[in-house]
């Protein structure tokens, strides 16, 4: 796709994604925090779930997205794949940080400790550092093509961590519970909790898509600052 068409076509998308995402997140969060009854064993602390689960889920999805974009870049040298990787890495770093932080806060009342060194927490912490590596490597390499290639290779190599995160709760003995929501089995969560949680997960997807898209727009603008269409666009508005 040409950068110019992308840039002109994506503005409406960013507005829509932001609007739906923020509305959905407000709905799901307010519902989850104020209108859902307390859980039988955890009391009120389980409400952290409405933040923790979407953040943890999205961090993995973002990394998978970056790894796929890495393959696309290496095979077809698609410039937009590189733009996506550059825009998504900082977002992934933040969602992973959010997942870790909310997990720490949730761990204290339920597990009795802030942090446990087990398979799930370690693998998510590694994910955090992988995102950091993406950003650091991109900044260290000055030539854009070489940076894009290096970051792609790193993303693909690091993708090995994703199945480790996913199955860490099933392969190893850990305090972290196995997944409660799956596509194939009936949910292990009661409907009362499930609906606001699903709203929050879906809205988080939409909101993050908006954030990444907005980031990509900025990068496209910066990378094509010497073209006539960018100069015309920035001059006219």
């Amino acid at each position: 796709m040409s950068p110019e068409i992308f840039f002109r076509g994506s503005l409406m998308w960013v507005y829509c994604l932001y609007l739906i995402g923020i509305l959905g997140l407000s709905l799901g969060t307010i519902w989850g925090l104020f209108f859902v009854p307390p859980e039988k064993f955890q009391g009120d602390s389980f409400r952290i779930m409405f933040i923790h689960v979407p953040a943890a889920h999205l961090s993995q999805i973002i990394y998978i997205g970056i790894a796929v974009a890495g393959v696309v870049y290496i095979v077809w040298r698609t410039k937009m794949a590189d733009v996506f990787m550059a825009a998504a890495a900082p977002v992934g770093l933040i969602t992973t940080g959010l997942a870790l932080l909310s997990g720490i806060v949730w761990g204290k009342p339920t597990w009795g400790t802030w942090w446990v060194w087990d398979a799930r927490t370690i693998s998510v912490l590694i994910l955090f550092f992988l995102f950091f590596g993406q950003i650091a490597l991109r900044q260290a390499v000055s030539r854009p093509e070489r940076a894009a290639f290096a970051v792609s290779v790193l993303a693909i190599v690091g993708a090995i961590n994703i199945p480790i995160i996913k199955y860490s709760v099933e392969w190893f003995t850990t305090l972290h519970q196995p997944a409660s929501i799956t596509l194939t089995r009936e949910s292990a969560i009661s409907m009362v909790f499930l609906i606001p949680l699903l709203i929050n997960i879906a809205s988080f997807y939409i909101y993050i898509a908006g954030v990444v898209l907005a980031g990509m727009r900025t990068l496209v603008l910066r990378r094509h600052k010497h073209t006539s269409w960018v100069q015309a666009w920035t001059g006219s508005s």
Partner: protein
Amino acid sequence: MKVFLATLRRDLLVAIRTGSETLNPLVFLVLVGVIFALVLGNDHAARELTGIPVVWTTALFANMLALEGLFRREQDEGTLATILVANESALPATVAKLIAHWLLTGLPISVLAPLIGLGFGLSFETLGILSGTLLIGTPILTLVGAIGAALVVGLGRGGVLLTLLVLPLFVPVLLLGIGTCQQFQFNAEYIPPLLGLLAILSGAITAIPISIAPILRFSQDQ
């Protein structure tokens, strides 16, 4: 085959003649191990408990120190570009470089590490397992680290960046290696983590050597 042997011979010769670059990581290993044993004082139980993780982690860092020089000399003097020019010679040459690197770092580290383990009061059987897991683990470190080294070759401030990039990838190897030794030390089931380590090694041997040359080539012509 000719290219393979010539590169292997050349790398080993260069290492022997320059000396210090090869010896530094090993001295680092001994020094850090000794300091750890020192600061733990006379607490025997604590030393026995921490011995394996400390030795394994120090071995990993020593390996890491050597990684940065994997392609640096060739990059600086320009031979790397020559090696990569011909398609047929690129693969045997990079494989030879990887093997030479392991012979000069991984192997001596695996031999030296048990000596440091002695200072922590570990039993002889445990030291054997420690050495064995290092023999399986250090080739993985060399292979995975080579990807990182190939990515940052030619960048001025490669050292810290390389550590940042590959350390997260080393964590599974570290945990499985330490896991195997500790399970053995405490008479628990030590075969499963050992198999995990071997699985990673076979995967790395299959996938990584063929991908190093293309990565290096890209880092070259950009």
